[in-house]
């Protein structure tokens, strides 16, 4: 969480200076979800992060170097400079390629779960998406398909109460998004998305169900977007200051530090050590990203189709 937070803050700084050229969708305040969920997984499980699940990339092992250079549009970044980092895939890290169309990743994640089930593997497929994405037809079709086929999938809603500039009340008239799972024949659970341990616990249960062949779970994590929708927007545009205030008090990092302190696990300057290593990792990545070369223009023509030899060999 600390690494992610530091990453987000630094990336925003670099964006203001024009170094980061990708539109940033800051995850400040939502870090506990990606962390709690991904710690509940095995390395051979797969995930598709949302536009805002920064923590998931870092926990799953995408290096800060690679991620950041992607955001700078460098050849060392996402898809060799061809894709935005926040939707990147990584085979090694078990991160499937998502979609910049919110919600469209949901059926794709279901398809990965289908592959696992067909091959009798006890792997799990996890899809992260925002509350806004639940309004898409693909949410409905994807969850229904997963429910009917009892696929080993976990659908994680990062419910941060907003979709761009619009509060959820304008998009949703029901009482709980998690409750929609009933209509698909599997459980829906709502947890405090700012409590990393609560997320981890709920996730562990969902994963156990999936591995046992009992089908999907819809996990709604309640959280709050501390910043604007993207780097171009002021942090709390159009929102009630009291609302913002109260959520800042429930910052997931604050909460977890308090919990650790309470359990007596933060002794010996542990935090300072972590902070230092985080700072070092970030600064190393900044240097790496800045120094990395821009892509060769010819890169544009690669990876559109498989190289001809591969195609020929296939026949």
């Amino acid at each position, binding site marked *: 969480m600390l690494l992610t937070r530091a990453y987000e803050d630094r990336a925003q700084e670099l964006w203001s200076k024009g170094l980061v*050229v*990708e*539109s940033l969708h800051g995850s400040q305040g939502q870090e506990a979800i990606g962390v709690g969920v991904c710690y509940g997984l095995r390395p051979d499980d797969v995930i598709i992060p949302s536009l805002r699940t920064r923590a998931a990339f870092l926990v799953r092992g995408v290096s800060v170097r690679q991620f950041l250079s992607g955001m700078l*549009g*460098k050849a060392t970044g*996402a*898809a060799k*400079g*061809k*894709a*935005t980092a926040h*939707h990147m895939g990584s085979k090694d890290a078990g991160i499937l390629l998502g*979609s*910049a*169309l*919110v*919600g*469209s990743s949901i059926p794709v994640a279901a398809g990965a779960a289908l592959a696992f089930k067909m091959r009798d593997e006890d792997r799990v497929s996890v899809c992260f998406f925002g509350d*806004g*994405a639940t*309004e*898409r*037809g*693909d949410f409905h079709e994807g969850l229904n398909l997963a429910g009917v086929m009892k696929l080993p999938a976990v659908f994680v809603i990062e419910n941060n109460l907003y*979709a*761009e*500039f*619009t509060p959820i009340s*304008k*998009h*949703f008239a029901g009482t709980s998004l998690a409750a929609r799972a009933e209509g698909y024949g599997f459980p829906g659970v709502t947890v405090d998305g700012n409590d990393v341990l609560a997320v981890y616990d709920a996730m562990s249960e969902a994963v156990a169900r999936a591995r046992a062949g009992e089908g999907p779970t819809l996990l709604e994590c309640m959280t709050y977007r501390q910043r604007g929708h993207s780097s171009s927007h002021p942090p709390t545009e*159009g929102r009630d200051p009291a609302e913002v205030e109260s959520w800042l008090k429930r910052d997931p990092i604050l909460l977890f530090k308090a919990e650790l302190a309470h359990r007596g696990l933060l002794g010996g300057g542990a935090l300072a050590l972590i902070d230092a290593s985080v700072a070092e990792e970030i600064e190393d990545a900044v240097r790496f990203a800045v120094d990395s070369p*821009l*892509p060769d*223009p010819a*890169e*544009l*023509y690669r990876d*559109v189709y498989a190289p001809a030899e591969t195609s020929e060999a296939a026949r």
Partner: protein
Amino acid sequence: MTTIAYREAVQRALREEMRRDPAVFLFGEDVAEAGGVFKATKGLLEEFGPTRVFDTPISESAIVGAAVGAAMMGMRPVVEVMFADFTTIAMDAIVNSAAKARFLSGGEFSAPMVVRMSYGAGARWGAQHTQSVEAWLMNVPGLTIVMPSTPYDVVGLLKSAIRSPDPVVVLENKQLYGKKEDVPDEEFFVPIGKAAVRRPGQDVTIVATGYMVDRALSAADALAAGGHSAEVIDARSVLPLDVETIVGSVTRTGRLVVVHEAPVFGGFGAEVAAAVGAQAFGYLAAPIERLGGAWSPIPFGQVLIDEYLPSEQDIVQAAQRAISA
């Protein structure tokens, strides 16, 4: 005359039409409170209130579908689809419902509605937020598609689109939202289906759409410096296409370059080239040159985008090839 930006032209057209006709209304994602991601609908909520300007859930299929239903019931909906790439999720409502409403009801119903979408590469929005989608929709009878390239045309075409008795897709280029121009203060229209000759010339005809019109004009400057006179035609309306104006030009110049953002294969330029090839047969002194985006998804980083889009230099070279053929 007042100088306005392309995005303000959207506002003006909507404002004028909404003042005139209470059936006209605007909806879409973040178009009301936020005034749209590109601020193209700013101020409309304030003037017309939340009944006529409102935000919707992230449901492109349903909002375009709802526009069809409202239009059949006598309203004149203007719906914003934030990025034209989302055509892929709204296409059923556009193609199967809106475009066929009049035909399948024998004229009893129709779907007079406007779908505004931002399109185009140039900024770094990635492969799924920057596509040019005109070719996906061009082969659909019942539909009308326009691509304004100037503030004047935004005002005039959008107003014509709103008054059209049938569904119109308006493709607004993201790179142009800040482009400024003097426009008359009195009301005016741009008729759908008429191309604009942006610059007259004798040696070669360049047909372009959207943002590529600006590049074509710069290319024409560069060609002029080299002693060649290029006629630049802004297609403006993709469907119906003003073949007459284009063919008329080519019968004089004998040479044609078509340039757009979408890839060449299966793109808008194919139709232009095919139509001109047939109708100006015998007048062509050189093969028609087609320029478009590279045959790849649209990349993210600037270096690659620059490689992707046809450049001024590409246009100049194509024109020179045609002239010297």
